[in-house]
């Protein structure tokens, strides 16, 4: 624990505090803002992993567009304060569920000693924009096109779902 690099500790603290505050705050706007800070922390972690491109995409798309959309919806829905709920009676069960998930994931990891070593070389950045683009347009071109189709379908669907209906539907 003592020899973890400072950048990792800093960004992981930001991400963890953001995550904890996201799931605990009652006001959705505050929770959304804490989620933005968690996403920025994760972008910093992508930077420490040598992928500056993914870090900037994370800030651009996730923190900059998706969370803005969240904030728009939260602000426009204009929820009354009475609709804010804290952690409800299912709190114990949910904390247990969360802890169980963490334990299940962690159990095989802490056994494996080879995962505690730090890989060399220090400034090697395999996930640079260049390598990512070469992979994306050569080996993964079909998933790339499919993702663009998914985005198109989602766009059409979202516009249709959120549109005000002109004819009032019977209950």
């Amino acid at each position, binding site marked *: 624990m003592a020899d973890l690099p400072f950048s990792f500790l800093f960004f992981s603290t930001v991400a963890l505090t953001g995550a904890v505050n996201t799931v605990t705050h009652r006001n959705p*706007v505050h929770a959304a*803002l804490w989620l*933005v800070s968690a996403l920025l922390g994760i972008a910093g972690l992508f930077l420490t992993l040598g992928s*500056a*491109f993914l870090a*900037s*995409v994370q*800030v*651009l798309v996730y*923190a*900059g*567009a998706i969370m*803005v959309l969240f*904030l*728009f919806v939260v*602000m*426009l829905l204009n929820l009354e304060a009475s609709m804010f709920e804290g952690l409800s009676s299912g709190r114990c069960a949910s904390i247990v569920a969360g802890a169980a998930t963490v334990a299940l994931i962690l159990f095989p990891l802490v056994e494996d000693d080879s995962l505690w070593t730090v890989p060399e070389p220090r*400034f090697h950045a395999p996930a*640079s*924009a*260049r390598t990512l683009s070469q992979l994306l347009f050569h080996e993964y071109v079909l998933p790339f096109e499919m993702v663009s189709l998914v985005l198109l379908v989602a766009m059409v669907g979202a516009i249709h779902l959120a549109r005000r209906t002109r004819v009032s539907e019977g209950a």
Partner: protein
Amino acid sequence: MTEPFFLSFLKALVVFAIALGAVPALVLAERRVSAFMQYRVGPNRVGPLGTLQPLADLIKMIFKEEVRPDGASPWIFSAAPAITAICALATAAIVPFGGVLVVGERRIPLIVADVEIGVLVALAMSSMAVYGLTLGGWSSNSKYSLLGGLRSSAQMISYELTLGLSLISVLLLSRDPEGFGSFGLRSAVETQAQGGLLSWNVFKAPISFLLFTIASFAETHRLPFDLPEAEPELVGGYHTEYSAMRFGLFFLGEYAAMFVSSCIIVCLFLGGWHLPFVADEVEVDGFGALLQLGSFLLKVGAVTFFFIHVRWTLPRFRYDQLMSLGWKVLLPVALLNLLVMGSLVALKVF
């Protein structure tokens, strides 16, 4: 590509000083240029030719009373203008103010953050700047502010699309020294510098230039796209409830964003620091670096003059006109332009 820390720190200080120093210059320039355009004189009492007017404005803003509306969340209310200002100033880190300064055997690129993802940082910062407006509008706990803030943010995220697409179509033309494409502004400028005057991207990709400039106007909330802050329409929009230094920060963020947008336009389209016969080489000594910086700032001044000129010439767009322009006109044109530029690059025309 590691640099000693003190060097990066020094460069960051210098760039910060330039960006912060440009803001009062732009404030004064706006008032004087608009005055001359309207056949009056403008501020000329404070200091010679009114040059100390921004200082007077700053002193006024510092001493004004800070009013905070009741029910406004204090942290978010204070943080919102800071977010806009920080994002605008942080973008100045990726702008190449000159070529490569050669001191002894050390080569110092005159750019604070010489990363491979240059313009993506600019786009990311403009995405984060949306939060400043949204939160400023929402945390003021007032109808006008909320509506203004949401309108502002919707405008910004709509025009980010055109910004990004026109950016891609001009980045296709830039090459780094190894021959690959690059997101970095330094590669864009060096490609234009090595080609001479006619290889400036404004000649090779004029439609991208037009689209990017229009989108920059919308991103920095300059007229004709400044409805969200227009007084007759929304009493000031998202900064209605802000006074004194917090308003000063919003103001600073707006002018810094204008300055940095002009810097990016100059680097991408107008050749950056390159000026034929005056600032030709990439690797220079001290005097050459000064010439490069001078020609860069001259071009940035010309572009900001254009920003100011347009503001006081054109009428304001209505909100629905603004949104339909962004989505129904600029976005299809940007897509077609990308298609055309991509085909031209693939056919090795460029």
